[in-house]
């Protein structure tokens, strides 16, 4: 009964635009008063403190900051130039550059909207200028940006790792192969459209242009390799690697490229702090609800109810896939992970599903959710840059959503695809 009341109250508050974090916390406060009495309320302060004091989540402000500095400090520009020299000779090359750059950048700074704005605001006008239809330009930008959710480093993966108690490093590694499959799939799809509609070739392949842009982009390219390498190699934790990323991004933008001005750096720091706080307040509020849910044994009861229906791992994964796809239609990815993952984890564990494997499934589901209205901030940002209508872009986007769905099915039902690197290196 109380659970039902909590759920209704939560829904009502969210729908009248009370921030989700505050709605969650209020529901928990109500439940505490009803079941334990007013004298237990001071615990709210303790939980709202402890809930936010998570050492692994420190990786979030660090990566957010590194991403923001890369966006403002001339690093993205050189990467785009290099990608354009490398792939420009292929028919539909700009679309492929777009995919490559998005995979590299998106989801790094914690705000999917800011990342899409950073790359899309250059690439979409460039594609328009070269005669690509605006719907297609918006669709390819938007879908490839969402694919990046499974390519390290990814803030949603860090959040999932903490909420589910899974290794963040293993999650990062598990995303590599599916991410490449998805990227290559999208590039093939773009190539197919490009031939069909006869879209342009940018320029002939010139080895010296590749070399020149490569030299320019060298540091920007080696930075993630060194940092991800030291994380994967176990030399540093994800948080420390993220800290190194900040130092390296500052170093490259100021000393090597000399393009980062202090004002831009200050903005990057403030925006990074703010984006972190928005996520962390949700985490803290969910800790408050979590204490209560654990006492009511709701996640365990849910697990038991589903297991009574079926204990087939693939049937359960199918169920969870549908569930997360629906959630992704209505919620931003961070909110969805923080709200739902703690509730379904006992079921996932009881069914014998590897939490790292499941993390990939969750993140990709939410990536697809970012592509589907009504709540689809990534898609809407791309449409807004392209000045295109959301629904007509969605028609062009169906092929790319198909690629995302294909990768989702692959990683869900062929676990060896995401898990082989993890097994090889860590188990």
């Amino acid at each position, binding site marked *: 009964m109380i659970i039902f009341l909590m759920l209704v109250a939560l829904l009502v508050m*969210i*729908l*009248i*635009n*009370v*921030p*989700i974090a*505050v709605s969650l916390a*209020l529901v928990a406060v109500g439940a505490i008063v009803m079941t334990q009495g007013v004298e237990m*309320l*001071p*615990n709210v*302060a*303790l939980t709202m403190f402890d809930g*936010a*004091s*998570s*050492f692994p989540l*420190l990786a979030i*402000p*660090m990566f957010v*900051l590194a991403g923001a500095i890369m*966006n*403002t400090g001339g690093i*993205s*520009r050189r990467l*785009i*130039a290099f990608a354009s020299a490398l792939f420009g000779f292929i028919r539909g090359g*700009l679309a492929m550059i777009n995919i490559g750059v998005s995979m590299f950048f998106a989801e790094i700074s914690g705000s999917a909207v*800011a990342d899409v*704005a*950073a790359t*899309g*605001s*250059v690439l979409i*006008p*460039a594609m*328009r*200028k070269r005669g690509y239809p605006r719907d297609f330009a918006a669709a390819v930008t938007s879908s490839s940006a969402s694919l990046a959710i499974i390519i390290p480093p990814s803030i949603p993966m860090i959040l999932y790792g903490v909420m589910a108690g899974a290794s963040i490093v293993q999650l990062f590694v598990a995303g590599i192969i599916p991410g490449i499959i998805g990227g290559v799939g999208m590039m093939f799809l773009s190539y197919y459209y490009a031939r069909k509609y006869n879209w342009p070739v*940018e320029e002939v392949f010139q080895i010296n242009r590749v070399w020149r842009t490569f030299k320019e982009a060298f540091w920007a390219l080696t930075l993630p390799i060194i940092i991800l390498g030291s994380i994967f190699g176990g030399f*540093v934790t994800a948080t*420390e690697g993220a*800290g190194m990323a*900040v130092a390296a991004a500052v170093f490259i933008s100021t000393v090597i490229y000399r*393009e980062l*001005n202090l004002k*831009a750096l200050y903005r990057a*720091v403030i925006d990074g*702090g*703010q984006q*972190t*706080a*928005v996520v962390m*307040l949700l985490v*803290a509020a969910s800790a408050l609800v979590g204490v209560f849910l654990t006492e009511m044994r709701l996640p365990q009861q849910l697990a038991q109810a589903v297991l009574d229906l079926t204990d087939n791992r693939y049937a359960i994964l199918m169920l969870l896939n549908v569930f997360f796809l629906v959630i992704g239609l*209505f919620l931003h990815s961070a909110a969805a992970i923080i709200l739902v993952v703690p509730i379904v984890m006992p079921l996932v564990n009881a069914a014998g599903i590897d939490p790292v494997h499941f993390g990939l499934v969750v993140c990709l589901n939410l990536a697809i959710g970012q592509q589907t209205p009504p*709540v689809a*901030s990534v898609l809407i*940002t791309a449409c*807004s840059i392209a000045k295109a209508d959301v629904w007509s872009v969605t028609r062009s986007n169906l092929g790319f959503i198909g690629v995302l769905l294909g990768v989702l099915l692959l990683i869900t039902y062929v676990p060896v695809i995401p898990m082989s690197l993890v097994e090889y290196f860590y188990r």
Partner: protein
Amino acid sequence: MAIVDRLAGWLETVLEIVTAVLMITLTLIVLYAVITRYTARTPSWYDEVASIMLVWLTYYAGALAALKRGHIGVDGVLRAMPEKLRMLVAYIGEVFFIGFFLVLGWAGLVVLEVMQGMTLITLRWVPVMFTQSVIPIGAGLFILAQLLSMPAYLAKVRAGVSRDEEEIQHAIAEAEKDNAQAGLSADSLTGKHRS
């Protein structure tokens, strides 16, 4: 209104400075830990202090986000309501928000009293009262931020402006400014061709 705007401006500046100090210190602490790990020993206070600073960031930068109405929410249903109902519901939403932080602030003060005399585990000279102070102070700042941003927010609700749409336009404008500054444009990618 002018006073509210001016106060909001001051609060924004103060919270921005606190956020910047916290972010920069956090980064430096993490880097210091990486370096000392390979040269000496990671300081024992590293985990505890870094985690506490993240809590501080949550509430100080979170109040900044509240001032800019940046906390994740869903405004589609609200915007679909007829104006009278919409305004009424928006006021109720504000009451909920402030109500929660009143409870949190009060609870934080009660906890502070209980924590008197305790210190951190790794740094004996830092009282827990100091680190825990972030909850009542943060709650107060959230309330202040919500109140100061309320007139502008309610005007937007009345006009039916979507928050997501606003955030997206803002992000695009920022990105275009950065790109212009970095000399990156559609022309620089497709330059050789005539359009």
